[in-house]
């Protein structure tokens, strides 16, 4: 639950610490009162009539990463993301954007934040039904006072970018769900924000369209490297998109880490149950199964895999070669993986999986890819060793 | 926020300017429909009974065809018509059955209404039974005999008592007080309008059923359904002063015309014409009958009468 230490020299885009949001009468007293703060949701409700949607949450969102907040409905994730731009006023804690205190901002400053720095995409799109696609996209610019021609021009570019060219004059009611969410995405992109906030943007869509949209986000992220905070209740989506994932339950972050950490070393039984059905070989990298080369011979021969290749890729390589594979990082051999270790990862019985606490020691968290991570779905082509 | 307040203030200011900023006497505001398109317009009040309709129809016909006015007709009940007359929303009432209180207020005190002279018709209000019933029961002559026959006049509406039918609530009536003060075993049932009462009377007459009704002469109905008056205690000056204690007959009154004071002064030909307008009971009945019984429109009836009585109306125009 600790925030991952920020080793990079730049300040995080969002820095959240000790954040609380309590709904109900006299909500202010809860965060400050250790006894009340320790209560479970049911007792808290019975004692005070309050509901704590977000409890003592802290994390940093680094520049350029996709930060996923994931949890089941009612876990407080949507409240959390709304607190970031104070669409919901937090009860306690600090939020900083690029080091600037969000909670201390006055109305004008806050508006400026919403207008220029953080744009949000909503689950049910939140489009204005009486405006055309183009005017919906241009809406954010209109709010900022951009002239009609300029904003339409800029909006048209973004509309084309999200693949809606030709539909500019349609009304939202005339679009499919996926198209509507593309409009929502375009509306957020057009103001060129520093951070994109996604609140379960694809959960109202059909599975196939959802996958298209996920690809779209991946593509955008790859092209523009924009920082994203992504809320979802879908673990698959979280694992696919997230550089780091904060897993929430009852308002608390129960685990924060890379997909691999979450799947490989669940912090508690709740997380473990949560990730049980995940195809581990597609999330875990070979680092987890790696052991030092037993001999120089082992270090010098056999198929090569990258250190961030998934276990499933390594299995393929090992199966083809019929022997252990080397993990090569820029020509240097970090270790080897054999079929036994790989199978242990798949079965979830590796030492790393068992001794969750010890696992982080074997790999430095700071090494977790801070920038662009190739999502699993795209990485399947990377069987070719470096 | 400040801008909104300023604009609201400016708006209020503009409105005040527009409306003239000064005093506006609503009692001097004419009907918005008057004098449209430059036509000279006279607005006449008509009441709900046919006699009144006949007066107005003939006056209108002559005003429009002989004098070139445009005539608007507004249906207003008598008492409100006084108010409307005083405000100038109506220019003239042609048939008033006597409203001493209003006359005192508007004619004597405020001087906003001027007398327009007699209509030429004398009105009388009383209680009537159909002549066929009176002939069968010659002993039924006055109010004293009514209780004997109360059960003959019973209807579903009056329950256990005899039914005394009254017309429009606009009519001058003390019937409720009369029934109470004369200790009659009757119940007053209001038809709501003269037309409703007429319909009812005609239906009773068709079946030769007995009925007792408040009615007034002159009226064309007597030609269709002969009716005989049931005498009430004689009228004496002032016996109807307290409406709750009335126990005497209705007064007999020559019907009056009233004009808006300004109209009477500046109304030109129209005002002169209306002041001179006066006709006989027979003339009025003739037109009323055409309207109510032959179902001619008031315009047609008036035209017919005007065609046949040139000598009568020529006098009004001179």
């Amino acid at each position, binding site marked *: 639950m600790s925030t991952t230490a920020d080793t990079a020299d730049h300040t995080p885009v969002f820095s959240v610490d000790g954040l609380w949001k309590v709904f109900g009468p006299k909500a202010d007293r809860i965060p400050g009162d250790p006894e009340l703060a320790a209560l479970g949701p049911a007792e808290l409700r019975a004692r005070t009539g309050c509901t704590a949607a977000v409890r003592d949450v802290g994390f940093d969102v680094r520049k350029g990463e996709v930060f996923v907040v994931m949890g089941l409905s009612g876990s407080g994730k949507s409240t959390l993301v709304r607190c970031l731009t104070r669409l919901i006023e937090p009860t306690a804690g600090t939020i900083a954007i690029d080091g600037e205190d969000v909670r201390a901002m006055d109305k004008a400053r806050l508006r400026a934040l919403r207008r220029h720095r953080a744009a949000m995409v909503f689950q049910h799109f939140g489009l204005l039904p*009486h405006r055309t696609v183009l005017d919906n996209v241009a809406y954010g610019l209109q709010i900022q006072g951009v002239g009609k021609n300029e904003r339409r021009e800029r909006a048209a570019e973004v509309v084309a970018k999200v693949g809606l060219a030709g539909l500019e004059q349609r009304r939202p009611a005339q679009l499919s769900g996926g198209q509507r969410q593309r409009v929502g995405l375009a509306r957020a992109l057009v103001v060129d924000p520093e951070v994109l906030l996604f609140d379960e943007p694809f959960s109202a869509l059909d599975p196939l369209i959802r996958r298209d949209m996920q690809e779209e986000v991946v593509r955008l992220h790859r092209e523009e490297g924009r920082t994203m905070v992504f809320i979802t209740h879908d673990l698959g989506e979280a694992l696919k998109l997230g550089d780091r994932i904060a897993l929430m339950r009852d308002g608390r972050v129960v685990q924060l880490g890379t997909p691999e950490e979450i799947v490989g070393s669940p912090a508690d039984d709740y997380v473990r149950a949560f990730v049980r059905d995940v195809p581990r070989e597609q999330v875990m990298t070979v680092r987890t199964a790696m052991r030092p080369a037993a001999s120089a011979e082992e270090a010098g021969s056999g198929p090569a895999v990258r250190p961030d290749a998934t276990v499933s890729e390594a299995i393929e390589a090992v199966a083809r070669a019929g022997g252990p594979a080397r993990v090569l990082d820029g020509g240097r051999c970090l270790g080897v993986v054999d079929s036994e270790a790989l199978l242990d990862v798949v079965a979830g019985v590796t030492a790393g999986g068992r001794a969750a606490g010890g696992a982080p020691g074997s790999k430095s968290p700071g090494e977790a890819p801070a920038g662009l991570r190739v999502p699993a779905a795209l990485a399947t082509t990377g069987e070719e060793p470096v | 926020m400040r801008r909104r307040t300023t604009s609201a203030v400016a708006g209020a200011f503009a409105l005040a300017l527009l409306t003239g900023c000064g005093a506006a006497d609503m009692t001097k505001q004419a009907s*918005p429909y008057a004098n449209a398109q430059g036509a000279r317009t006279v607005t006449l009040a008509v009441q709900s009974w046919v006699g009144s309709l006949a007066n107005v129809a003939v006056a209108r016909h002559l005003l429009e065809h002989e004098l070139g006015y445009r005539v608007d007709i*507004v249906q207003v009940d008598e008492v409100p018509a006084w108010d409307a007359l005083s*405000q100038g929303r109506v220019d003239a009432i042609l048939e008033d059955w006597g409203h001493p209180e209003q006359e005192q207020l508007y004619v004597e005190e405020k001087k906003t209404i001027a007398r327009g002279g007699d209509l030429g018709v004398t009105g009388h209000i009383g209680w009537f039974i159909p002549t066929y019933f009176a002939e069968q029961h010659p002993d039924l002559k006055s109010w004293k005999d009514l209780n004997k026959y109360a059960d003959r006049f019973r209807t579903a509406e009056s329950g256990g008592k005899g039914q005394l039918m009254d017309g429009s*609530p606009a009519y001058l009536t003390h019937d409720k007080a009369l029934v109470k003060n004369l200790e009659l075993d009757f119940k007053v049932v209001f038809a709501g309008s003269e037309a409703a009462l007429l319909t009812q009377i005609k239906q009773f007459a068709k079946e030769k059923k007995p009925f007792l009704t408040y009615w007034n002469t002159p009226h064309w109905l007597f030609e269709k359904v002969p009716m005989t008056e049931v005498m009430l205690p004689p009228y004496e000056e002032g016996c109807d002063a307290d409406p709750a204690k009335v126990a005497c007959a209705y007064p007999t009154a020559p019907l009056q015309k009233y004009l808006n004071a300004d109209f009477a002064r500046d109304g030109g030909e129209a005002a002169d014409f209306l002041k001179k307008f006066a006709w006989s009971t027979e003339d009025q009945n003739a037109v009323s009958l055409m309207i109510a019984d032959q179902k001619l429109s008031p315009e047609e009836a008036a035209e017919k009468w005007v065609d046949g009585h040139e000598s009568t109306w020529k006098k009004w125009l001179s």
Partner: protein
Amino acid sequence: MAAITATARKASAPGVLTRPAARKLLALALVAAILVPLATARWASGSWPEALTVDASGPLAGASDWIIDNRDSHPLFLYFFGHVSNLVVVTVRAVYLALLAVGWAGVTALAGLVAWRVAGIRLALGTAVAFLACGLLGMWVPTMQTLALMVVAVTASVVVGALLGLAAGLSDRMDRVLRPVLDTMQVLPAFAYLLPVVLIFGIGVPAAVLATVVYAAPPMARLTALGLRGADKEVLEAVESLGTTARQRLLTARIPLARRELLLGLNQTIMMALSMAVIASVIGAGGLGDRVYQALASVDVGAALAAGIPIVLLAVVLDRVTGAAGANLGQAPRPRTHWLYVVVGAAVVAAAGRLTARLEWPDGWVVSLVEPVNRAVGWMTDHLYSGVPVIGGTADWAARFTTWVLDPIRDGLQWLPWWSVLLVVATLAWLIGTWRTALTAVLAMAAIGVLGVWNPSLDTLSQVLAAVAVTLVVGFATGIAAARSDRVDRLLRPVLDVFQTMPQFVYLIPVVALFGVGRAPAVAAAVVYALPAVVRITAQGLRQVDPAALESARSLGATSAQQLRQVQLPLARPALLLAVNQGVVLVLAVVIIGGMVGGGALGYDVVFGLAQGDLATGLVAGAAIVCLGLMLDRVTQPTERRAKKGA
């Protein structure tokens, strides 16, 4: 786990259902046990005790006289009401003159083109035909007078209503204050609004316009507030997340998002304004209503229809065009140039009319309806009125209805001790609603007693009860038939549409011809007037029953009677309750007007007050009508206040 909770819930269901009701009854019984002996000991009378009445007519008469004396001198009148009145006169006159200046061809063209732009070619043709029909019936000038009055009244209603709605939509406190007031105003009979305005403005167009505004503004206000409050939360959140100011949010999102409700509000405001503009002829509105009113005075059904048809045509056209505007929302807009065509087209036609000096409707082009209609009515009265073998004539029915239904109800109500009436009202209101509704209902009923009009009010109430009973029996039966057969539905729909827009006055004429004078025709008119709404709500409610529930019933082999009884009717309960509520409200409105055809009671007092200038009597009766309306609404109003009614 799920199974356990399910069975537990099932087992406790009857208990949960009956317990609150039983508790309420018990509490009421307790209160009654304490208060009733006290009340009977002090004021032992069947009717409302004299000691508890307040004579309001004395002071009211004084106030009325004072106003008449000071109307032309007191500053309040000179500097405020005078200006209001003047503004109304000036604007109505301006619109009227403009309409006349455009000429009949120009007005028809303009109306048709606007309808075309808003609602398409079919409605455009309908609109043009409707206007031409008004001319053909010889009603062009009265139609223009009514239209002028409507334009002013509707504009004012919309402005006032939208502002109130904006306040209630944006501020929770305003909403709490305004909502009950608006809800209540909407259930009050139109007649109750006439006297207060007459008191201040006297008889005439200003009073008529203001009464219309007061009557027609509430739906606009309610629907505006509803639209603003009902806006999609996520859209508003999205808009906020883009950094809008409150003002930007209101103008670019909240108001546009509420467009559907705003248009519905406009539609309802227009319809209510039209019906009021007709009734307001009693206080000098002029125009078409006045023609109906005059025709009523001479039982001239033909003439009443000749004026009534243009009203119906206007109503249908206005309703359809504004309705279509609402339905077309969200579709691709038509190019703006179309408005240009509208303006140019109308201008060309108007100019052509001017040049050919054909502004006034040609006298020769008038078709008289009066005679054939009156002949038909005459035949009806001759042959149906009485002496029809076996079934008896309509007069016999009326007499029987009066003797066997109306009299027993009235006598029963008046016989009941006053406190027991209050108790019954309290019980009904509490069973169907909360203690608040019960309190309101009881207070309203008590106010009637205090005003000293207990007996006439019970008389009116007895007519309402009888009419509602008939309306519900006939309405539910017809509604069920319409819900079960598409053919019946198709046949009924246009009939219902027309009946719902007919001015109430027109109903009074044929019922007098058929049933004579008295309470029976008043009840008959009320039934006919309230029936369409009840039929429509019932049919809609039954048709909207969850198809899945019906399907499952069918799959279990339920007969269609079983489906109706066991599935459709129980599931349509809210709609049926709404139908009862609407039925009561509409019936009350017409029973009051029935005072003009011998209905007597409160309605007669209002008419009497207006006719005799005895505003005190009228105002007291008007207040009693308000209380009665309030009580009846509360007694039939289920707790979950419906989101919007009358739609």
